[in-house]
């Protein structure tokens, strides 16, 4: 790796690890101190490496400097020493010197503890995602603002409010107990999936940030797989789901950052390695007797990796959507289910079912109706697409609908 790329890379991989370890050590009240120490460590690295050149082992250098800075901070700040150091000493059963443990195991334990802290239901899921990006993924405020298509101010406030809430609720950063895992793993998975979706479905044109979000969500999920106690079938299913989705990342966005619809994608751009990875983890997920929504969604995503239309493919997708809706209703699943129904049972039956859905605020609903009426009643189809156009918000959605209208007009 080139020297000038090394530091940003290390920032991406190591910042969050050291922050997690220090937060785990200091507790929720002192998150900012942990962040300051780590930021300061990277600042020292920038200065020192520019003058003296790269150290032999840059990561070890960062860890040593972070440790020293923490110790100095504790020595310097007597108030902090009295209040916090006493606690740490008590907790670590050390009497003389505070040990800052940056071993692989402690990093992994700290990150797991942090995931469960950040995904605490006292803060909204939106805040959980922002905080996860900031603390667990080392994303800067600007990067998060880019991903959310909002400004720094908004993100800054959201993150600070979330931190304050965690502090005032005295949430402990600690190893999750088995009960915590049982109660909260679902929330954790929801946040991880939201993080992924934020990147995958974002209307942001910034493809690099979007890919990063997806990669970070997968990394957090993999962290759960690596830990024996959180390595549940649902976690494996979610990882499989994200692998299948990611496999189409290159194929679903054109050079202008616009979405290319599934049926128009060049499947030679689908990433076979990620598809195989998805299969492997879906297979791992097929144990136990709990069928989570991630199993069903991963199954649906798996069938979408088969480009060729076959009755078998759409029948499986339809039944998986039926199951998914029985488990948990969502408008998008209802619409996709009806699309699959058209493929298996024919457009006429699907139109009857679609008209029962009554999702009159949803532009996808009218696009679905437009799609179903195409070649059956093209005038109706066009009218539905035009309603969809009025309801659609993003330019990408409008462009897609306009393409459909053009297609119909050429045949009217």
């Amino acid at each position, binding site marked *: 790796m080139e020297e000038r790329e090394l530091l940003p890379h290390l920032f991406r991989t190591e910042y969050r690890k050291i922050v997690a370890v220090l937060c785990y050590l200091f507790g929720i009240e002192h998150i900012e101190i942990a962040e300051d120490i780590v930021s300061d460590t990277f600042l020292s690295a920038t200065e020192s490496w520019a003058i003296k050149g790269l150290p032999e082992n840059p990561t070890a250098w960062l860890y040593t400097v972070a440790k020293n800075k923490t110790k100095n901070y504790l020595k310097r700040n007597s108030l902090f020493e009295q209040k916090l150091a006493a606690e740490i000493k008590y907790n670590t059963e050390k009497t003389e010197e505070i040990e800052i443990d940056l071993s692989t195991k402690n990093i992994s334990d700290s990150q797991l503890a942090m995931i469960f802290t950040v995904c605490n239901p006292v803060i909204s899921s939106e805040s959980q995602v922002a905080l996860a990006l900031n603390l667990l993924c080392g994303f800067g405020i600007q990067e998060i603002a880019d991903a959310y298509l909002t400004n720094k101010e908004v993100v800054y406030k959201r993150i600070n409010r979330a931190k304050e809430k965690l502090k005032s609720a005295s949430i402990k950063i600690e190893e999750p107990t088995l009960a915590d895992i049982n109660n909260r793993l679902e929330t954790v998975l929801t946040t991880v999936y939201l993080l992924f979706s934020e990147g995958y479905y974002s209307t942001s044109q910034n493809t690099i940030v979007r890919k990063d979000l997806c990669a970070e969500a997968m990394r957090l999920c993999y962290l759960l797989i690596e830990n024996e106690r959180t390595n549940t079938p649902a976690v494996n299913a979610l990882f499989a789901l994200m692998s299948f989705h990611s496999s189409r990342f290159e194929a679903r966005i054109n050079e202008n950052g616009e979405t290319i619809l599934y049926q128009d994608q060049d499947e030679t751009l689908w990433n076979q390695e990620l598809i195989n990875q998805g299969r492997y983890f879906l297979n791992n997920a097929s144990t136990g007797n709990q069928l989570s929504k991630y199993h069903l969604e991963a199954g649906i995503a798996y069938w979408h990796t088969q480009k060729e239309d076959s009755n078998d493919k759409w029948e499986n997708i339809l039944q998986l959507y039926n199951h998914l809706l029985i488990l948990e209703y969502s408008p998008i699943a209802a619409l996709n289910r009806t699309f699959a129904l058209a493929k298996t049972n024919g457009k006429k039956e699907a139109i009857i079912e679609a008209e*029962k859905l009554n999702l009159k605020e949803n532009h996808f609903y009218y696009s679905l109706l437009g799609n179903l009426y195409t070649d059956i009643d093209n005038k109706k189809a066009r009218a539905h697409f035009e309603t969809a156009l009025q309801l659609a918000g993003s330019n990408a959605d409008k462009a897609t609908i306009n393409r459909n209208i053009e297609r119909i007009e050429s045949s009217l």
Partner: protein
Amino acid sequence: MNEFLIVIHRDLTSKDAKPSPEQMQAAIKPFQDWIGGIAAQNKLVTPPKRWESEGRVVGQNNVVTNGPYAEIKESIGGMLTIRASDYDEAVEIAKGCPIIQWGAKVEIRMAVPTE
């Protein structure tokens, strides 16, 4: 919106029962599609379960016999609960039950709204 109990009665006891086991097999997909369609409208409250066709019946003096009732041709084959605004809508939904064509009967009962 009101809650409705949908009970599917079918012949489990006659030798030449309709729907027959073959017909029930053929009804699996239409049945799943029917339930999926209700769920897609966000009107499914409790999904149906698969119940064994054998059971127990407790009568007077704690007499326990193997069920279902031998003297009645229509036993409970399945049940679910749905949301609908009135009986008309609930009946429309129930008409979609794919085994009615083979003689099953679907009973619809509205939950009495709690005050």
